[in-house]
């Protein structure tokens, strides 16, 4: 077990790679009542085409299968795993993203048993035709729920307008039609390929004693047999650097129109550190111009082109990246056109050293606030780890950034061909 000490944060992380390849991280916070455990596989909705373990040819599985698998891991032949956690006074949950599937619990007692339950249920799948069929109705209602949410539709619509072929454009839960094709055999194929311990990370944070917790995890894993760690071959289609559509709109029963400006980010060949640096820089630049203290925000808000719902984000990950700005607007065409112009103007701009220092301080503060949350720490640490970087080293990275770095970033950032505008228009009654 290795100790990673982070002095400024006053935190210590314990890490170990087990014999079967599982990466374990522990963070002890004895002042907290609760413990949060999260068991993550580096497998998400974009991993649709791959060579199954032990096979030669690649397959493409139905859309929405990673998420479907997440639902079905909770069901065993004789019981529902939620009940196991219930009996242990814990609450359990799971989520699927573009690149990850994670299983988690929070508890304030019986932590050892809860950690074992988490490991055991994820590592002991039971899929049957009958239970697969039953789940289709539940997931169909989950998809319908999202169908009625304008915020989700505008987020996803923007991504769909940015990407030509890449599976990031496929809704994480799939569609009501696509999930009908999922079979129990498909689930086993995905499970066996992506749930090998060497493709997974366990993070336990909270009221724990690291030494004994690591022992428990080591013993639990040593008692199970796994095949040799497979090399996972994932395939992704060729994807142009340009946006798929310049503009697109749908209509929905909304009271106010929505407009989103999307920028397709080029992440080809970037290391994890570069992805993190890019996310930080674009976040700080967007903050400077488009948060409430920004000149662009002020102009857009005063002219009633945006309101309180205005948001922006940059997400860079393995395989894909995007920046999205937008929200409700009474003048969506004008809003989108003006934001596009603003993005182009950025090339000519320079942030002063003083202002850049202010944005750095804001970033540092945001990070410190987030550090109050065990969930944030465990989730993000895992995410950074799968990108090959360290969450707790992000402070020195922020400290090292300069206004010159921002200027350099702005030179290459915005490209007309990589921009899309997506709108939701109110439906006529």
């Amino acid at each position: 077990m290795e100790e990673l000490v982070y002095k400024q944060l006053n935190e210590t992380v314990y890490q170990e790679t087990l014999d079967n390849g599982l990466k374990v991280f522990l963070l002890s916070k004895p002042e907290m009542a609760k413990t949060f455990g999260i068991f993550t596989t580096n497998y998400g909705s974009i991993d649709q085409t791959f060579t199954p373990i032990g096979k030669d040819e690649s397959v493409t599985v139905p859309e929405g299968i990673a998420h479907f698998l997440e639902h079905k891991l909770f069901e065993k032949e004789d019981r529902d795993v939620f009940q196991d956690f219930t009996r242990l006074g814990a609450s359990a949950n799971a989520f699927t993203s573009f690149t990850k599937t994670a299983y988690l619990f929070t508890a304030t007692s019986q932590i050892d048993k809860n950690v074992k339950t988490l490991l055991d249920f994820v590592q002991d799948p039971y899929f049957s035709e009958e239970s697969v069929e039953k789940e289709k109705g539940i997931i169909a209602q989950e998809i319908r729920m999202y169908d009625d949410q304008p915020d989700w539709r505008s987020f996803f619509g923007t991504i769909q307008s940015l990407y030509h072929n890449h599976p990031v454009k496929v809704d994480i839960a799939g569609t009501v039609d696509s999930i009908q094709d999922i079979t129990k055999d498909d689930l086993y194929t995905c499970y066996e390929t992506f749930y090998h311990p060497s493709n997974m990370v366990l993070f336990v944070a909270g009221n724990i004693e690291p030494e004994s917790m690591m022992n428990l995890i080591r013993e639990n894993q040593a008692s199970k047999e796994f095949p040799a760690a497979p090399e996972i071959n994932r395939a992704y289609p060729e994807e142009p650097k340009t946006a798929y559509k310049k503009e697109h709109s749908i209509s929905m029963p909304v009271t106010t129109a929505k407009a989103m400006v999307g920028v397709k980010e080029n992440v080809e060949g970037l290391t994890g550190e570069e992805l993190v640096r890019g996310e930080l820089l674009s976040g700080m630049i967007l903050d400077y111009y488009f948060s409430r203290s920004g000149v662009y925000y002020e102009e857009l808000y005063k002219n009633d082109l945006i309101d309180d719902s205005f948001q922006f984000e940059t997400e860079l990950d393995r395989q894909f990246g995007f920046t999205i700005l937008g929200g409700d607007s009474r003048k969506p065409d004008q809003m989108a056109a003006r934001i596009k112009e603003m993005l182009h103007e950025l090339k000519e701009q320079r942030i002063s050293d003083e202002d850049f220092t202010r944005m750095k301080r804001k970033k540092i503060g945001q990070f410190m606030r987030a550090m109050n949350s065990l969930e944030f720490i465990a989730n993000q640490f895992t995410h950074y780890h799968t990108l090959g970087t360290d969450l707790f080293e992000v402070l020195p990275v922020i400290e090292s950034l300069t206004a010159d770095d921002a200027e350099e970033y702005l030179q290459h950032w915005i490209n007309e061909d990589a921009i899309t505008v997506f709108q939701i228009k109110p439906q006529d009654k």
Partner: protein
Amino acid sequence: MKLTKETLLEKEGYRLHILPSKKYKTITIVAKFKAPLKREGITERALLPHVLQKATHNHPNVRSLQSAFENLYGTALSSDGSKKGENHVISFRMEVVNEAYLNDQEPILEEAFQLFNEVLYHPKTQGEGFDASIVNREKQTLEQKITSIKDDKMSYANLRLMDHMCKEEPYSLHVHGYQEDLSTITPESLYSYYQEMISKDMLDVYVIGDMDENAIEKLTDQYFSRKGSDNVDDDQASVSKDVTEVNEVIEREEVSQGKLHLGYRTYTKFGDDDYYALQIFNGLFGGFPSSKLFMNVREKHSLAYYAASRFESHKGLLLVFSGVDPKDFKQAKSIILDQMEAMKTGDFTEDQVEETKEQVINQLQETMDNANGLIEVLYHQMLSGAEMPANELIENIRKVSKQDVVQMAEKIELDTIYFLTSNEGGE
């Protein structure tokens, strides 16, 4: 005895709660303004926090004010309005990084208190009112917020359920205010409402984090004192209605999923002896994935992705909510009603009661790990006069028997069934 280590001091025009804790890398300061819930002034209460956060005397525009917050390591200030029974509470929340974690030792805490003070007590004014352009712009924003509640179908269905169920009670008032009031609000009228609120509302200030208590007291004395205010609690007692018949309401909108919401009366509030039994009741009925609603509506019949219940502590309501296909309305409704009947007949085991207690306790302890969560629990306790330490609270939860839960179930009355469905969906 208190829930946690808390220093409570009656100060000039406010009550100060200091909560030392080593759990956080930040210091959280929350100011709560409480007044009776009334139709008159409700829109002003919704509008005010937005106006106050836009500009102050020293920072006359949004950019200047926000830049000041950013310079203090991105200190965040937010506000929200909520109902506590028939009362309305505006909370202003500020979170500042603890100076101990910063490389350069700057006194940002004091500067943050100073900014908080400016936002609350020294807004930007123009003649006898607020800045007119700010008020006008914020009225537009609020109007948009009021109309767009409809776009979030779950919140909208909940709002409609309350409109129907609590028609005659202040509780049904909308915390976002009403569109028709906006045209009558002027910068001057809003300012005079502000003066009333800022001097007469009951004010509680909470400070939580790893800090020197004396220094905090000095800061709050300097920045939160209200000269001439005696800080009285003008509490409006909760109304609880006897149900004579069950009301069923079906409304239609362009939706792909129907929202089935049921409203019950529990006749039990925070601070009542059987409040603990209500917590366990809710856990068994619809509070957790192990509960009857989840297991039956979702797992057994695959009718929904979510089916759950929660209760309103200060009002004595129990609310069930689920998203189902429009065609499944009758089946889902009858399954939900059956689950309530099963609760009343005691169709659950002693083991399930024990497991639910552990879950409720787990939830309580998790809430108390969170700064804002802990403040909410303490504030509830104070308002209801039911202050007790955490171990006593937990003991009371552990004492609940199966019989207590059945008695609670028998007390609960169905009031209104509300279904928001598609234009084509049958009943």
